[in-house]
């Protein structure tokens, strides 16, 4: 079974307990306005253009069958939407200016790579995290990979937005030691407006996850909320999520992480040739962070963690 993997980052600390490898899968069921991995949203094989690496030799434009790459007065121009992902350009590009966003790998390919790091997982209670995109948008691949990881004694984590069918979600839960569940916005309309889908399915899956963890206490449930200025950082939103965690997730959430927005993804949007509304959005200020932590702590009994850069 193969899948589209856009990165395997080895030795992470942000995606679950201990020292971990994170496998990033391409394709997402949401389209969040603030997305930090915009290259991962599209399910299709695609190419992107890295201006910093480009030496402007023009070979890509010569070979492109779809006209997505052209040479104009300002050098190379790449149109992400016209690109058909045939990879003709990446084969002639020597500098990596044109590169495939993701590679097609089998579950065994991934397994072979992460098994090399088992020492690090074992000593730190770490393991492998599937992230994305939305890993469960490639359900067969994800479930097979999770299952193989379990067979090899590797602890698993799944970073999910939970916009997937309950059936897939429940199957994944069985194979996941630590579920990293994203709860972004509690207001369903806002959710739809900013992510492209409402949150009914998310909340249903979240409840299932809590029930599952209660019945299977070796499994763990972590919640993460991106703190996006003007979108998710309101008092109402954090209080509402807190109440949901407290009452409906029935005390099964071990920790709730508030992940502060940053602009690191700007260069990715540039490489895709996509305008990003958050390009100039400043970091969360320190007072807001402290206030949100306070709100979160007052309304839940789980452990609150804040991560990411803030401004004074």
């Amino acid at each position: 079974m193969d899948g589209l993997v856009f990165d395997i980052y080895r030795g992470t600390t942000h995606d679950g307990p201990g020292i971990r490898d994170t496998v990033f899968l391409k394709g997402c069921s949401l389209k969040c306005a603030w997305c930090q991995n915009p290259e991962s949203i599209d399910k299709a094989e695609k190419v992107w253009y890295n201006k910093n690496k480009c030496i402007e030799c023009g070979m890509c434009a010569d070979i492109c069958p779809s006209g997505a790459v052209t040479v104009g007065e300002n050098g190379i121009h790449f149109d992400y939407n016209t690109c058909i992902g045939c990879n003709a350009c990446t084969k002639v590009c020597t500098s990596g200016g044109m590169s495939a966003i993701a590679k097609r790998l089998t579950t065994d390919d991934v397994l072979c790579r992460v098994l090399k790091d088992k020492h690090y997982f074992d000593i730190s209670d770490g393991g492998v995290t599937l992230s994305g995109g939305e890993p469960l948008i490639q359900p067969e691949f994800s479930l097979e990979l999770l299952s193989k990881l379990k067979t090899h004694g590797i602890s698993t984590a799944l970073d999910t937005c939970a916009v997937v069918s309950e059936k897939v979600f429940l199957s994944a839960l069985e194979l996941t030691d630590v579920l990293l569940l994203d709860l972004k916005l509690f207001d369903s309309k806002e959710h739809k407006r900013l992510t492209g889908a409402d949150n009914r399915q998310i909340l249903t899956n979240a409840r299932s996850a809590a029930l599952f963890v209660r019945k299977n206490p070796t499994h763990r449930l972590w919640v993460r909320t991106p703190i996006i200025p003007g979108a998710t950082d309101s008092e109402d939103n954090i209080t509402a999520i807190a109440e949901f965690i407290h009452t409906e997730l029935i005390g099964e959430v071990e920790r709730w992480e508030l992940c502060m927005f940053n602009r690191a993804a700007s260069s990715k949007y540039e490489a895709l040739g996509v305008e990003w509304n958050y390009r100039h959005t400043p970091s969360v200020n320190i007072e807001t962070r402290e206030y949100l932590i306070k709100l979160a702590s007052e309304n839940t009994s789980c452990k609150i963690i804040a991560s990411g850069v803030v401004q004074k």
Partner: protein
Amino acid sequence: MRKLKINTEPKFVLSERMKHLQERSISLAVSGKRNLYTANETQLVYHWSDAGQAIAPQSGDGKFQGLSLGDHACRVDIGMDFPALDEVPSKKYGYRPDAENWAVDFAFLLDNSPAEIYPNETIVGEFHWEMNEIRKYDFGDTVKELGKKARELGAGGNSHGHTCPDFSIGLTEGWGGILKRIEESLALYTRLKHTAKSAFLRSAKISCEAIMRYIDKYSRYAKELTLRETDPAQAAIYEKIANACKHISVSPPANYYEAVQWLQFAVMTDRIVGHGNGYGRLDKYLIRFYKSDIADGTLTRDEARDYLAEMFLKLRGEFFSLGGRDSNGNDATNEMSYVVMEAYDMIDDYNNLGVMWHSDMDPKFYSYVCDVLTRHGAGIPSLVNYDIIRDAELRSGVPICDAADVAYSGCQWFCIPGKEYCDQDTNAIVLIAPMRRAIDRAVSGEYTEFEQLYAAFTDELKATVEALRIFKDAQYNILCDMWPEIVTSLNCHGTIERGLDITAHRGVDYQFTSTNILGIPNVADSLYAIKKLVFEEKKYTLSEVRDAVKINWKERERMRQDFLCQDKYGNDLDTVDSLYVRITETIAYIMDHTYNNRGQQYRASLFQFQGHTASNVIGATPDGRLASEPLAHGCNPTAGRNKNGLVATANSVAKADNRKFLGGSLQIELQPEFFDGKDDLASYTEQFSKAFFANGGVQINLNIIDLEILRDAMEHPEKSEYQNIIVKVTGYTSRFVTLCRGFQEEFVGRENYGKM
């Protein structure tokens, strides 16, 4: 707001007295008075330049312009030449390259260096001039000629200390006890009419007596200050200093305080010789004094910590180690190991400690070590895999009774204290040179197989090592006359009894030659790209590669990118890593079969401390590197080429069999945000290091620092918040602002993991 470092509440609060001492120490450092320089880039790469002036003059009136390695000098520069320069005996009465002539100069230098005691100090001792500033350092034309030949083939070096005495000798016998042994031995060899040994022992006697007078001078000066001082508290401190110095000028230290003061003088007088030794296991040296004083109730833990912290604030460049195993293989960690770590934890200031971890180490101690390392984020201490360094000594033929005593002694190297002249860290092989010659041979010989090229590379490397061997042998033949290490020899096993300097043939039991290897990852990346693009895909010819590299890839950008974008070492890719391992095995094999004229083998380090920054001396390479870009540092991937995360890089580095080498450190720069959301920051460091060591890694230098902020510090070095940022540069630590710009640029260009 970016975080420069992980900021947490300090664990120990500085007393007012310690605060004053720290302020003075910092102000000396940031004003450049503790800077250590290297003459030029050629010196940096080959540790030898045409001038043959292996030791760069450091101080004086500021006329010396070299590259600053940072505040790594033990001496304090006061901006003036040695006042009695014209009166130096070898200048006044004639220079002779022999030990006695050397010792008379050394005694003169000490006799004419002032005793200096500053308010609030209880640990005293400071110096301004080193031997290399007052005495000719010249190996002569024969050596210089051989040095030139060696450099043409990519090798160089000078024997320049970089070994490790055993201070437990002096701490047990005192300078008086050492002197007594010298006199007995001198009497013996005089009776037996061995003129050379007698001459060495006379030199040892002159040097030892000079050290005793120098310490006594401090006692007399402190006594003077006692009489002048009106504040009774300060007068009591002066008196304490006077009594201690009086006592230890002859006798072994009577208590912990005197032992620390003894070490201060021992390191200082050793450093006045002008080199970079390591000094052994600090916890082992001090534990008996500590225990006995604590039992007597004459010392508190706070006092013990303060005395050590004072020494750390005064000394620069010294390396001490902690932990390891004892001669029975048991954990050697003791209560003193904690006190040493606490002293650093308290002052948060530069010092080069190494903790020798092993699987039986007191877990509480190792957790504390990782906690300190993580909180301060300055690479202090280095984490070292004890079992690997012991095995490396065993592999060289050192019996277990001695190998067990091994101590981490410098940037990445280690030594059997007092028994080994390891001649470490200032010999170098630039691996690019034999590769280049191999490519030339392959072009003219029209090789069609990669294996032919690799065989040529092996041949050429042998030629480079052979040139180094001939050059080093010529140095060794005259070293104990030209620049003996008499002061170090005073605290060695057997030197006095044999009447031989540590640098003389068989002066100590083990006299290996150790050499740093520069550019292994670049050669691995280069040969891999050539293998693939020239021999397998036949996309380019080897002569095209040779020519492109020669002209620094000018107008060959597309081709350069092709070479640059091949698999690179440092990503845990077996394709290229296997070639890296093969190269290290080739190096080890050649070293195993190369012996110096003491009959002892060569050993290589997968390390070179700053030569990688001097890229212009090296030129471009077939891995797609431009001449202006730094080479890889030691066994670490070239900056920017490792993209799969820290663990992938660590796996690549651990693939070499580190027991075959004299160290090779994994250098890591992590962003403080890497630890965001973690409850127990130190546990990551602890777990990561243990897994790395279990995989066969030998050393970790870990900075936790935001490189973005350091980039700003480069542009605004005057800002107060940037004055005291301490980093592990490569094998040593320094304040960032005191590094020369080239080193700063290289530092901020490194991979700062954790951007995910």
